[in-house]
């Protein structure tokens, strides 16, 4: 049908469906000849996809939207017909910050409102003492990590642009940066949170599923122009990823072994399995925490790209001043997520119930009322 495909990915657990699709032969069974190319930065993945060196890519969902809107870089319309992962991130803090937060905590330590209010008190105390502002690491300006951190801290009254420092760090540098005091906390995907805990230098404060019930994390992305020219190959790729996602949910052990290989994610299979199981060690003292919602790959309709997810991400871009609000841009953002392609390729008839955002603060999100969403929050860079 089409020539060989080159697909870029970043070594993270949420590239699982793509990696398993290729390594278990699901893409070959669909008649596709796929080469996976391991990359080091989201900028590289985006650029190589944009200029046609990649046919498809494992991409941060907000990057697919930003690329289609032409913010932060050149404008290249992107199509996302498959959600590679929902959720999957966590917020990890240094033992010192953890102790400070616990000392100020009123309420449940897994309640993000309680921790956000504690953070606000820690921030205020530091300012009063003339200490440096706290520094938080995240992975990219257009990343779910960035928006999750901001959403959480702003709910407690902390202005992410004024009261703390938010810095981009490549995921492989996160743990080092936490160890040597360059950052006090970070929000990143697997396996980096677990690695910090295993080294005894971090506590997982929150799974991001504490903050949002469902957040689109990574998507399978192709250029709109490529999708238009290769509809059959795209459908085949979506089907192969779908089969892989099902396989992963049925066999965490084998999936973890495939993903652990040196040319794929190249970390211990046990750490990957913990992520897939949603059972993570959260403290150096050995405390484990379990959540079936930690990372969704294929379960609960997670693979179907829901436009409301794109709308929420766009609303965050507006809230934090990355782009002005416009009806047209909202529609463009929502148009990036293509459940129609997913449904046609996999034979799914109806939404599998993945249409809620479920944030812990603010009113329920609706794509029909982005202004209402923005007005509900005091802190933000958006002005009506």
């Amino acid at each position, binding site marked *: 049908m089409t020539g060989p495909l080159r697909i870029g990915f970043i070594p993270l657990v949420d590239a699982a469906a793509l990696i398993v699709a290729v390594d278990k032969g699901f893409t070959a069974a669909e008649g596709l000849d796929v080469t996976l190319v391991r990359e080091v930065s989201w900028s590289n993945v985006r650029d190589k996809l944009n200029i046609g060196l990649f046919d498809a890519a494992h991409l941060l969902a907000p990057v697919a939207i930003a690329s289609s809107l032409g913010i932060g870089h050149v404008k290249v319309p992107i199509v996302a017909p498959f959600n590679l992962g929902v959720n999957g991130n966590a917020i990890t803090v240094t033992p010192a910050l953890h102790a400070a937060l616990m000392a100020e905590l009123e309420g449940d330590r897994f309640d993000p409102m309680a921790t956000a209010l504690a953070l606000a008190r820690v921030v205020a105390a530091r300012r009063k003492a003339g200490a440096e502002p706290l520094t938080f690491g995240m992975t990219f300006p257009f990343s779910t990590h960035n928006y999750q951190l901001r959403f959480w801290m702003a709910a407690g009254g902390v202005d992410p642009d004024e009261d703390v420092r938010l810095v981009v760090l490549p995921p492989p*540098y996160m743990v080092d940066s936490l160890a040597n005091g360059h950052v006090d906390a970070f929000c990143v995907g697997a396996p980096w949170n677990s690695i910090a805990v295993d080294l005894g230098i971090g506590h997982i404060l929150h799974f991001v599923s504490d903050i949002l019930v469902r957040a689109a994390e990574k998507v399978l992305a192709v250029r709109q122009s490529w999708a238009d020219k290769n509809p059959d190959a795209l459908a085949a790729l979506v089907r192969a990823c779908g089969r892989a996602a099902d396989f992963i949910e049925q066999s965490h052990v084998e999936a973890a072994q495939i993903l652990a290989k040196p040319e794929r994610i190249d970390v211990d299979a046990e750490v990957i399995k913990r992520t897939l199981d949603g059972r993570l060690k959260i403290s150096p003292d050995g405390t484990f925490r379990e959540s079936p919602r930690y990372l969704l790959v294929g379960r609960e309709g997670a693979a179907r790209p829901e436009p409301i997810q794109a709308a929420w991400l766009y609303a965050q871009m507006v809230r934090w001043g990355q782009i002005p609000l416009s009806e047209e841009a909202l529609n463009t953002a929502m148009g990036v997520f293509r459940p129609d392609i997913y449904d046609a390729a996999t034979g799914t008839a109806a939404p599998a119930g993945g249409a809620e955002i479920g944030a812990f603060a603010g009113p329920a999100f609706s794509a029909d009322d982005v202004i209402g969403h923005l007005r509900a929050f005091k802190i933000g860079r958006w002005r009506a």
Partner: protein
Amino acid sequence: MSAEQSPKIVIVDESPIRAAILEEGLREAGFTGVVRVSEMQGLLARIYALDPDVIVIDLENPSRDVLEQMFQVSRAVRRPIAMFVDQSDAASIQASVEAGVSAYIVDGLKKERIKPILDLCISRFNAFSKLQDELERTKSALEDRKVIDRAKGILMKMKGFTEEEAYVLLRSTAMREKKKIGEIAQSILTASEMLK
């Protein structure tokens, strides 16, 4: 050359050899304000302090994403502009990505002024990867010679061959099997290891 004519160029590269090759090329071309950065910790702070007009970074550097943030936080740099050359110049972008280099214009430098810098970087990056390929080839040729010498030694000892005869046998076997002499020599080494 006045400061106006020579933009300040920061090279971000973890390979000291490549960075040196790049710096030398840029200096030869008359760009006097070239600074190399190899330390990735605190990269953003270094770059703010240096306040460059152009940043050249290798694509295999994970810190590329850190620079992207710079273009988002507009108050930190004076006039953050797009990266690469110009979004209409697809050929330059492609050439640059394929060579493994990315240039960021920080201070509103005109397209005509960034173009020669980027072109030079692309050719230097290509020269560097050619150099590296050659180094790899030389290394593997050396490796082959060592293996062949050891295989010859084994044949001489076991078969009572002269060095010349041992080499002729290796070569004729390689020709018959349509393999490299090095591969045949390696299989002799492996076999003799197993038969020990």
